[in-house]
C-alpha cells in the first residue's frame, strides 16, 4: 500500500488545500497521472502521482487544507498492507521530496493550522472564486474576521498595475529582498518565507565572471534566420542548456543540502519567472541536460504562459535541482541570487550588452554577459564554483556543440 501525501512543492510550501480529486476510487493510476488539484499560495497546482496502483481510499476531503506530508490517499500497489493505526488524515509524514522542517516544527505548524480562520461565508466564497489564500490575510471584520472588503483588497492588489519605478527597484535587488512590491499577499509571503530561510540558513559564497556571448548570439541569429517566428530561439535557451551541461560536469552543484550533500540524478533547472503582477515562480525545465536547445525553447514556450496563469504541474514546481535567474535582461548588469533551499546553487545572468572585451591580446566590442554564481558553502567550496563557471563559459563558446 502506498501512502500518497500532500507533496511539498517548494521550500515555501507548508500546506495545501485539496481542491479536487481528479481520479476516482478504484481507478488504476499510472505514473504521471494527475490525481488531484491542490490550491497553494502559488495557485492551483495539478498533483501527479509517481507510483502505480489502484486508488484505494481518500483520506482527505475536497476543500480541506492540510500540511505538507499529510497522507491524502492510499494507493494499492499490491504490496505491503498498511494498518489502520498508521493511517489517518492528520498523520504527519516526513515529506518525501524536500524534508525541510524537522518533525517538531511541523507539528507546531499543524496546531496553528488547526485554528480556524475567522472569515465570513461570503468572503470565503469570493476568496475561493479568486484563489486568494485566506490564511495570509488579516481580517478587519467582527472579532478580527476576514470579510468581503478584505478579500476585495487582496484581489485588487493582485491586479493592481505595477509602477515602473517600483519594478525597477525590485529588479536590481532581485528575488532576495524585494521591497513591499505590489503583489498578492500570499505570493509575497511565500517568497518571503523561502528567501528568509535561505538567507538565514545558507552560507552563500559568490563568484562572478564576464563571458563573451558573440559566438552564442551569432549561433542563435543563424539558427533563427530561416525559422518562422514561432520557432525562434531566445538566448536564454542557450544559457539554460549551457548551464545544464556545466552542471553535468560539476555534479556537486546539482544537489540539495539536507544534513549533508545529496546529488541529484536528474538535472532539472529551475527558471525564475517574474510575474507581471509581482512575485516570482520557479518552474523546472526537467532533464535540461538531455534536451536539445530547441526542446528547451519549446519547454519555455510552454511553461511561461502556464506559470503566469498559475497552471503549473506539481513536478514542475517541486523538482528543480538548480536555479537560473535571468532577470538581468531587464537592464541590470549583474544579479546576485539567493539560493532556493534546499538547492545548493543559483546562477544569475545579467543583461547581454555590447562591451569592450579583450581576448588574446585583442580588444573588441562584443556582446558579453556578467554571470554570477551563488553557492552554498556547506555543500561546496569556491573551487567547485569556479570550475562550474569555467565549464559554463566553455560551453557558451561552443554553442554548436550544445
Amino acid at each position, binding site marked *: 500500500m502506498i501512502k500518497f501525501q500532500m507533496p511539498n512543492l517548494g521550500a515555501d510550501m507548508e500546506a495545501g488545500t485539496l481542491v479536487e480529486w481528479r481520479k476516482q476510487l478504484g481507478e488504476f493510476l499510472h505514473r504521471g497521472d494527475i490525481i488531484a488539484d491542490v490550491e497553494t499560495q502559488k495557485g492551483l497546482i495539478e498533483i501527479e502521482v509517481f507510483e502505480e496502483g489502484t486508488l484505494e481510499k481518500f483520506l482527505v476531503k475536497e476543500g480541506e487544507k492540510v500540511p505538507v506530508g499529510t497522507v491524502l490517499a492510499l494507493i494499492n500497489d499490491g504490496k505491503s498492507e498498511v494498518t489502520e493505526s498508521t493511517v489517518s488524515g492528520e498523520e504527519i509524514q516526513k515529506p518525501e521530496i524536500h524534508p525541510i522542517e524537522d518533525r517538531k516544527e511541523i507539528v507546531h505548524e499543524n496546531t496553528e493550522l488547526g485554528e480556524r480562520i475567522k472569515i465570513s461565508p461570503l468572503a470565503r466564497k469570493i476568496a475561493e472564486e479568486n484563489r486568494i489564500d485566506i490564511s495570509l490575510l488579516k481580517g478587519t471584520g467582527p472579532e478580527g474576521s476576514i470579510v468581503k472588503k478584505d478579500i476585495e483588497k487582496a484581489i485588487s492588489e493582485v*491586479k*493592481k*498595475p*505595477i509602477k*515602473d519605478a517600483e*519594478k525597477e527597484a525590485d529588479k536590481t535587488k532581485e528575488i532576495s529582498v524585494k521591497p513591499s512590491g505590489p503583489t498578492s499577499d500570499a505570493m509575497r509571503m511565500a517568497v518571503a518565507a523561502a528567501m528568509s530561510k535561505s538567507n538565514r540558513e545558507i552560507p552563500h559564497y559568490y563568484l562572478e565572471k564576464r563571458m563573451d556571448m558573440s559566438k552564442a548570439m551569432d549561433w542563435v*541569429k543563424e539558427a*533563427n*534566420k530561416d525559422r*518562422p*517566428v*514561432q520557432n*525562434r530561439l*531566445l*538566448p*536564454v535557451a542557450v544559457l539554460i542548456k549551457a548551464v545544464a551541461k556545466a552542471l553535468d560536469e560539476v555534479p556537486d552543484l546539482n544537489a540539495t543540502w539536507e544534513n549533508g550533500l545529496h546529488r541529484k540524478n536528474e538535472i532539472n533547472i529551475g527558471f525564475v519567472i*517574474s510575474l*507581471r*503582477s509581482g512575485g516570482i515562480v520557479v518552474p523546472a525545465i526537467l532533464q535540461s541536460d538531455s534536451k536539445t536547445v530547441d526542446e528547451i525553447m519549446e519547454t*519555455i514556450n510552454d511553461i*511561461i504562459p502556464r506559470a503566469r496563469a498559475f497552471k503549473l504541474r506539481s513536478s514542475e514546481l517541486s523538482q528543480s535541482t538548480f536555479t537560473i535567474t535571468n532577470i538581468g*535582461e*531587464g*537592464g541590470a548588469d549583474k544579479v546576485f541570487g539567493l539560493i532556493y533551499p534546499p538547492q545548493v546553487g543559483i546562477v544569475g545572468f545579467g543583461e547581454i550588452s555590447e562591451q569592450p572585451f579583450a581576448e588574446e591580446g585583442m580588444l573588441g566590442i562584443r556582446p558579453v554577459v556578467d554571470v554570477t554564481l551563488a553557492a552554498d558553502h556547506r555543500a561546496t567550496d569556491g573551487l567547485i564554483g569556479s570550475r562550474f563557471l569555467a565549464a559554463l563559459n566553455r560551453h557558451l563558446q561552443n554553442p554548436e556543440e550544445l
Partner: protein
Amino acid sequence: MTEEEIKTTIFQLLQRIAPETDPSRLMPEENIREALNIDSFDALQFIVAINEKLNVDIPEEDYGKTSNLKSLLAYLTKKLKE
C-alpha cells in the same frame, strides 16, 4: 490597412501581453519593452502575435527597427505595402 488601424492592432497585442498597462499612452520614441516592462520572452510573443495578426514576418536582424512605436509603425506600414 491604415496607419491608425495598425496602431490599434499593436496596442491590442501589447495590451494582451501586458494587460495592466495602457499602451496607447506610449510616446512615439519611447522604448516599448522598457516602458511596458516586456521581457525577451514576451517580446518574442509580441513578434509572433504580429506575425499571426498582420502576417508580417519580422526577421531577427530587424528587431532593432521595432524598438519604439514610431519605428515599429513605419516598419509595419512599409512591410504591409510590399
